């Protein structure tokens, strides 16, 4: 991959833009600020493309730059002290950046694979894994048995496993 080549750079951008925006969003809690941060990271990468050695770990580079910019944003104003304090407890800032990047790339794949689930299966998966409802709460809310909820989850997992290969 040659990032001085515009089409290769676009390929990297397409691969990392959404996970990076989500990563930044979970730190700064603002969609527009997260987008600004990530766009700035890519703009600088494009401007400095000739200085980046081939074979350099671009994933680590991008996530580290986004993390630093997000922290810079939180520190930039004393009015955001509460957010800054809350951000210090985030696993996104505590864990090694490579692991964080890996998790966001898996979440990206998982999110885009959800469209392959049937509506019911997707609903159960979203309610359980994304809205945090228990099986019995889902069963009650959808008027189905706990066993049916479990079967939908098993089916969802099976399909996600095939799509995430």
């Amino acid at each position, binding site marked *: 991959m040659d990032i001085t080549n515009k089409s290769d750079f676009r390929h990297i951008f397409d691969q990392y833009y959404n996970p990076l925006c989500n990563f930044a969003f979970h730190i700064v809690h603002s969609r527009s600020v997260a987008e600004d941060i990530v766009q700035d990271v890519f703009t600088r990468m494009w401007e400095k493309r000739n200085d980046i050695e081939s074979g350099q770990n671009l994933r680590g580079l991008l996530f580290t730059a986004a993390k630093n910019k997000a922290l810079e944003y939180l520190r930039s104003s004393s009015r955001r002290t509460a957010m800054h304090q809350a951000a210090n407890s985030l696993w996104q800032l505590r864990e090694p950046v490579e692991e964080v990047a*890996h998790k966001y790339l898996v979440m990206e794949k998982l999110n885009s694979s959800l469209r392959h689930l049937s509506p019911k299966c997707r609903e159960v998966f979203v309610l359980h894994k994304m809205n945090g409802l228990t099986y019995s709460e889902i069963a009650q809310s959808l008027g189905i048995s706990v066993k049916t909820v479990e079967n939908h989850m098993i089916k969802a997992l099976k399909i996600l496993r095939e799509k995430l290969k």
Partner: protein
Amino acid sequence: MGSMDINKIILQLLNDKSGKEDYRQLESWKEETAENVKWLEDMHAVWPLESEMGSYQQFDSQKGWRKIMRPKGNRVLKMAALGAAFILLATATVYYLFIRETPLSEFQSTDDPVNVALMDDSQIWLNTQTRLKVENDFAEVRLVSLSGEAYFNIAKDARPFRVMLEPDVFVEVLGTSFNIDHSGNGLAVQVYSGRVAVHVLDRDVILEKGDGLKEINGNYVKFRFNDRNTLSYVSQSLVFEDTPLDKVLKDIGRHYKIEFIMGQSVLLPDCVFSSTMINQSLSEVLNELEKIFQLSYTKHENRIVIDKVKC
């Protein structure tokens, strides 16, 4: 071993409910391919991240790419922009320092919902055009004020959490989750877990899980709710299951801040719709409706006039 069995075992493992026999079967499944091991590791890594997965969203990468590749302005324009920014900053500083009574923190959403974390770890999702202010240092009472609509997931704590809506109207809780809509159509509160007290008309109305309170012509009516799309701005998903079309259009309208209007001599047919829409744009949603209901429409800013619709 059947694939259904191994998926069940994996699910139990991810949910921390595996027994010894499950582990044994899992080990032999992992030995089958390196891909199995990798997939399980990936799932293990993200499975506990409910909050992040719940708020995972789609950003507009086309817009992002255009911004990155936009040609840079010339030096004179840059200087002019810098000058304007300086004047704006100075004005804002004077306003904040000398004119405005400053809360400790203030969060404002504009065209998109915003998720904020407070210093006590409470999570709050602001719907569009909503403002939340932290009014004290949370020493004894956690005091915030709200203008607009927000979903609160309050961290359990001995200090009461109070949301001021008007000088004599507030909602008070200890640790729970609830939605407050105070955006102009009267007050509406819905409780998703725990118990809250809504102070209105000099009295406390107690709401428990599944209870709602709505202001209708100055009166407050308590009701049981089962509308799963109230929090669509939090989950970024709309769920319909044999839902009448008028309710479908109402929920979509609420979510995307648009209004559906029936065109001349068009009647809404008596049909139902089932779908789960996650992180979809308005045009994707309209495309789906076009296919299913042969919908044709004309879009005028925030209004969509329906010209044709069939079951």
